[in-house]
């Protein structure tokens, strides 16, 4: 009996698989973002919707063009949903009435220079949505800090004109975010006890100035809890990050309320919730061990607070996440789980004889 030519399949075990596919995971994340996004559309009207659509389309186009250029079939890879998620997250972090080209440039930047240059999904070193947001913020500071109050949502067509820059936005609509306002006042020498917040700067329900991801804090947090419940993310990154924002904020505010914003405002403002549950938990760019994720989350939170409090920019979540992304390989290298039968240093565990219990 010869073995030649009889091998049907040389496949390694296991012969069963349980893992949910990548696209299912991505679509579940997207699904948890839907309530917050819809609430944002309701608050800011159709310009927000058009910008969201344009940003996602640009992200998908960027991904497809790169894949085609690399000689791969784009369609099956677009279906993994990662470019959709990237575009969506970027759209949630933009000023809702930003002009169309902000969405186009951001979406393209995110999937091309942020991701495909490094080899596509799984190989990018920085969170694509945040790197695009930062690139936009640094390059177009005026458009990226032009916020509107959530009032008088225009119709679909008017909204499209606003997004396309064909209709001027009334001055009365423009405002500053809470964090931005506080930063400006502190820089002018007005302390926080005497600052006068403009209307719509803060609202517990969420009808306030900001990006889609900032206003609907509760819905974002609810989406995050849903992700936790579906076991797509673990508690390590979000809890560590929120704690590392809240604890220094609480200490600072207790020490000097005129200089430091209190911790609830910190958590409810900017991209704290979106960052903690959806951005910092990005699988690709965060550490792969539980302990590493805690360190990563703490770093994100602390840097967020430091940049918000001392930095030149009012909001620091995106910067903090990117800086910690850059440290992720180092964290993964330094913090490893203990291997069974080995010490934390990786040496075989010493023999310990004696009676068992």
């Amino acid at each position, binding site marked *: 009996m010869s073995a030649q030519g009889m091998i049907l399949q040389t496949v390694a075990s296991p012969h069963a698989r349980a893992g949910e596919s990548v696209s299912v995971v991505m679509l579940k994340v997207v699904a948890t973002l839907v309530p917050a996004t819809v609430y944002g559309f309701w608050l800011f009207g159709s310009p927000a919707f058009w910008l969201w659509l344009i940003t996602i389309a640009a992200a998908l186009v960027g991904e497809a063009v*790169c894949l085609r*250029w*690399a000689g791969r079939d784009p369609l099956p890879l677009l279906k993994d949903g990662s470019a959709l998620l990237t575009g969506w997250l970027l759209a949630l972090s933009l000023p809702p009435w930003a002009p169309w080209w902000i969405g186009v440039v951001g979406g393209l930047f995110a999937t091309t*220079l*942020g991701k*495909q*240059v*490094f*080899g*596509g999904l*799984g*190989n990018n*070193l*920085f969170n694509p949505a945040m*790197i695009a947001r*930062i*690139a936009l913020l*640094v390059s177009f500071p005026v458009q990226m800090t032009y916020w509107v109050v959530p009032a008088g949502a225009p119709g679909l067509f008017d909204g499209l004109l606003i997004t396309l820059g064909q209709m001027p936005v009334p001055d009365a609509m423009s405002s500053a975010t809470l964090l931005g306002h506080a930063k400006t006042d502190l820089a002018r020498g007005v302390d926080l006890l005497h600052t006068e917040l403009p209307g719509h700067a803060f609202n517990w329900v969420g009808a306030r100035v900001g990006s889609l991801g900032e206003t609907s804090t509760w819905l974002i947090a609810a989406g995050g809890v849903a992700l936790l419940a579906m076991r797509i993310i673990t508690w390590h990154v979000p809890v560590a990050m929120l704690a590392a924002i809240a604890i220094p904020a609480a200490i600072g505010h207790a020490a000097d309320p005129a200089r430091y914003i209190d911790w609830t405002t910190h958590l409810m403002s900017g991209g704290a919730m979106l960052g903690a549950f959806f951005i910092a938990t990005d699988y690709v760019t965060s550490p792969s061990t539980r302990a590493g994720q805690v360190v990563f989350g703490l770093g994100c939170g602390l*840097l967020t607070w430091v*940049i918000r409090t*001392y*930095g*030149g*920019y009012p909001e*620091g979540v*995106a*910067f*903090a996440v*990117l*800086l910690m*992304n*850059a*440290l*992720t*390989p*180092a964290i993964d*290298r330094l913090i490893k789980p203990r291997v069974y039968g080995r010490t934390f240093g990786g040496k075989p565990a010493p023999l310990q004889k004696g009676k068992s219990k």
Partner: protein
Amino acid sequence: MSEYLILLVSTALVNNVVLVKFLGLCPFMGVSKKLDSSFGMGLATTFVITLASGACWALEHYLLAPLGLNYLRILTFILVIAAAVQFIEMVVRKVTPELYRTLGIYLPLITTNCAVLGIPLLNVQQANNFAMSVMVGFGASVGFTLVLTMFAGLRERLSLAKVPQTFEGAPVSFVLASLLALAFMGFSGMKLG
């Protein structure tokens, strides 16, 4: 004391020598393929910059300024730096031959690292006192080491990634460096205290 701490943070992060001032890019691109060797490079450069900052301050204040030989500044500074590099080269060769071989030409090339000459010159320009000069040198080199090891860690991971052929090697490293610089923009305009 807090003044020096602020100086340290400001030179290490806010005015990072590599990502904000764009000095010392040669070793930043050259010796960032392996985390261990780039950390070694960082330590060697830290030694040279800190020593050179102190020595050049002394040179400036006790030799060049009193004798009015300001035009010899660059020449004498380079002399001091070259000597310090020679010294560290001998030490590295003796202590860790592997690191010596890995660093290769980049070890003697610390001499031409513009950050090394730039920081003593900056100190003279800003009329820092001795302690501040050393602190600026140390802070800048800590920033250099931090960014270099960060970058090396990223590149180590990148070496396992399937980068498109067009971008393989230097191009993707430059893209990566620019994205890292973007992230460091977060520290810009930081006012401590």
